[in-house]
Structures are given as structure tokens and as C-alpha cells.
């Protein structure tokens, strides 16, 4: 039986990674709206291959490293460094907005728990989502590996939920996609252990192009 404080920490994680948590995640598709429209993603199989690439070589891999670095940051100077680096790494305007809008909404919503108080000298920092998650998960006593897969879970489930509406996928198909990606989340997260900020970077060029192309897409359900 876990201790009551462990149970409490777990309950908070359920709230914070839930799609119902007010970060506005339903409004962002990470460029998937373009890739579906373009015919690159048409079903569970192509969706899973696409997301796997992001986890091992692309934006989701970098986000896991940002989350770990924010988790490990021990001073406001280090937090600032991770936040600025993650902001500067956005592949496009929409990627930048997607991550800071959600990150800042996440910080605002978690204020209720009063676990992280911004220093006055942090007023000018923009907060990418994985950075905000890393800081809060740490202060909620989640260890770094579990924090990292929790952050990746939020990103992957957000993309699958966008795919569910866009392709569209049936409910059970989207669950199949999640099931197939479970161990890839864990494996790719393990590979980011010990990585530093300069080890981030994208190899998913067409996913980055898609996030740019989405800006000019005619009919859009999603903000990114």
C-alpha cells in the first residue's frame, strides 16, 4: 500500500496530465492537421510511424530533454536557461505559440497547489510546456523518469486525440494507436536520460515543415 503522500502525488499527476486540465491542449495539433490533409497520415499505422519518429528523432524527443533539464534545474538561473533554450528551439511560429501558450496555461492552473512560486526576476520568461511540467512534476515528488514519460504521454495523447478528430479515427482505433505507442514512449524517454540542452534538435524535417504549412491551411479546426 503506498503511503498517503505518495497517493496524493499520484492523484495530482492524474489531474495535471488529464486532457481536461485547462492548458487548452484540445486546440493544438502539432501540425498534424496539415499532415492529415496532405495525405501523410491516413490511419492507425501511418499515425504510429509518424509519432514514433517524433519520439525518437524529433520535437517530442527534444521536449523530453527540456523536461528533464527543467526537472533537474536547481536555481532560477538554470530554469531561465532551459526555458530560453526551449523557446529558441521552436521550429516555427505555431510551434512556439503551441508550447508557450500551453506551458503558461499549465503554470497558471497549477498555481492552486502553490508548489512553484516565480521569482520576481522571472517576469520576462516565456514558459514552454515541458519546462513548466518538469518544474511542477519535480515539486510534486515525481522522479525524473516518471516525470519524463508523463510529459511525453500528454504530448502523444494530444496528437492521437487530434488524429481522432481529423482522420477521423474510431474510438477503438485511437486506443490501439496509444497501446502501440506505450512502449515507444518508455524506450524513447530512456534514451534521453543524461542528455543535455545541446543534445536536443530535430531530425523530423517534414513534421517541422508541416507546422509551417499549417499556418496557411485554408480550413482549420486547430490553432496549430
Amino acid at each position, binding site marked *: 500500500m503506498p503511503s498517503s503522500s505518495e497517493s496524493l502525488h499520484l492523484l495530482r499527476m492524474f489531474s495535471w496530465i488529464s486532457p481536461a486540465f485547462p492548458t487548452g491542449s484540445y486546440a493544438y495539433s502539432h501540425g498534424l492537421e496539415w499532415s492529415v490533409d496532405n495525405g501523410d497520415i491516413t490511419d492507425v499505422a501511418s499515425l504510429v510511424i509518424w509519432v514514433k519518429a517524433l519520439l525518437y528523432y524529433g520535437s517530442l524527443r527534444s521536449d523530453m530533454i527540456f523536461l528533464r533539464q527543467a526537472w533537474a534545474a536547481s536555481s532560477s538561473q538554470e530554469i531561465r536557461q532551459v526555458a530560453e533554450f526551449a523557446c529558441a528551439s521552436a521550429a*516555427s511560429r505555431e510551434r512556439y505559440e503551441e508550447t508557450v501558450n500551453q506551458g503558461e496555461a499549465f503554470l497558471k492552473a497549477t498555481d492552486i497547489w502553490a508548489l512553484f512560486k516565480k521569482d520576481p526576476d522571472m517576469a520576462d520568461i516565456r514558459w514552454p510546456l515541458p519546462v513548466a511540467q518538469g518544474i511542477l512534476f519535480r515539486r510534486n515528488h515525481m522522479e525524473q523518469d516518471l516525470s519524463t514519460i508523463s510529459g511525453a504521454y500528454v504530448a502523444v495523447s494530444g496528437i492521437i486525440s487530434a488524429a481522432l478528430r481529423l482522420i477521423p479515427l474510431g474510438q477503438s482505433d485511437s486506443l490501439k494507436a496509444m497501446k502501440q505507442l506505450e512502449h515507444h514512449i518508455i524506450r524513447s524517454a530512456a534514451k534521453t536520460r543524461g542528455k543535455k540542452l545541446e543534445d536536443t534538435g530535430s531530425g523530423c524535417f*517534414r513534421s517541422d515543415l508541416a*507546422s509551417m504549412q499549417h499556418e496557411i491551411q485554408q480550413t482549420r479546426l486547430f490553432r496549430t
Partner: protein
Amino acid sequence: MVNNGTNTLQRALGKFALEVQASTKASRLASLRQEGCCRLLFPYPKDHILEAVTVNISGGIAAGDQIEGFLQCHPNAHLLVTSQAAERIYKARSTDKAATVNTECKIAENAILEWLPHSSIFFDGSKIQRKFAVDMADSSEFLFLESRIFGRQAFNESASHISFYDRLSIRRGNKLIMEDIIQLDTINRRLLSLKAVSQGRPVLSTLVWVSPLAEEKLAELRPLLPNDHNSEFAASAWNHMLVIRSLSSNGRENEKQWRRLLHFIRHNRSEPSTWRF
């Protein structure tokens, strides 16, 4: 001598350092240093811009090579840097260290630096780490274009193991605005064939233009972006930057397409002198 893979091969070291200042009529060389395999050539000046052409006299980059460049534009100076020809990055042995190319740039108030080299061709088995760092004033401008070719299709080359790290860092007004890192431990045909990666297109280009004018140019630029069955171009602008990314099947076609786009971005200024072919 038979190379059994354990001996140490002769490796190229090269350095260049160039400072440019503005005079009443044109931008002029303020200081120049060149060492090892690095040379700079200065074609006859046009449009009051100082043009510098980088030359690697060792004929290409092999594993373990180390190249360091430093470029400084003083207030109001305008420097255009290009290369003599496409840079070739050759196959390394498995025990070799990656080649490193580090370039540092400082751009003062109202100065302009343009970095417009020819493409780099990465041969199968090559290992390289390139870092390009810029420190620029708010009122200055920086234009950067890099095209990387992972195996040339026309020569039937394809990648099976390229180790690649390419980083562009830009600080503007002492604030970090860009960390564009491309990193793949192993670039091979299977990886490139993934739809999220490049769908088999081996030519990858990135243009970054940082300027007070960059964001407002986006709407005019977008209709000029080529998109056909051989190439995909896309653009975005934020935080005082305009970024264009492209993937192409063919390096030569890619250069032609970029020339048209640069013509627009550079307000019809003359092309780099080595770009005529």
C-alpha cells in the same frame, strides 16, 4: 603506406578571422587572419558590400579536421560571405573522431552579415559537428542559408551511415532567439524515407533571416515558395525572424530555387560572385 585503420592520419586544421568596418563609401577589411587550410578571397566589390569567399585548400573535410572561423561586422558594415564551391565531407573510419567546424560572428549596430555558402555534400560514412554562433545587435541584420546534401541522387549515392550535428545559435540584443539544431546519430536511407523525416528527399535547406523587417516580409514571400513533386518549401516568421525550410530531391534544382528566393529577400542585390554557373 597501408592504412590499417589504427594509425593516425594527417588532419587539416584551419582558422580564419575577418573584421569588416564601414567607411563613407563602402565596407572595408579592418583585419584578416588566415591559417592552415583556410583562405579567404575578396572579389571586386559591388554594391558597397564587402564580399569574402571561403576556400578550403585541403579540398574537402575529412574526419578529425578542425575548422574555426570568426567574423565581425563593425557598425554599419555589410559583409557577404560565400564559398568557392560545394564543400565535400568525406567518409570517416569507425574509430575516427567527427570533423568540427565552428564559426562565430559578431554583428554590431546597423551592420549586415550574409552567410550564403554553396551546399555541403555529405558522403556516406561522414561524421561532422558544425556550430554557428551569432551575437547581433537589435538594429543589425543577419541572413543565413545552409543546404545539406545527404548523398547525391544523380550520382547514385545514398546514405547508409552519416553522423550529423548542425547547430545555429543566435543571440539578438543579448537574448537567445534561435537554437536550430539538426541532429541525427545515424542518417541512412531507411530513416530518410520516413514521412515525418524527409520522405526520401536527401537535400535539406534552412534559411534564417533576422531583421527588424523580417516578419512583415512573410506575406509577400509566401506565394514565391516552390512546391512541386521534387521539393517542399515552407516559411514562418516570429520573434524578428523569418525562417524558410526546404526538402528537395535534387541539389542543383534546389540551388536554383533558392537563388530566386534570395533575389527577393536581398532586395535584388547582386548574387555572390561564385554563384554564377
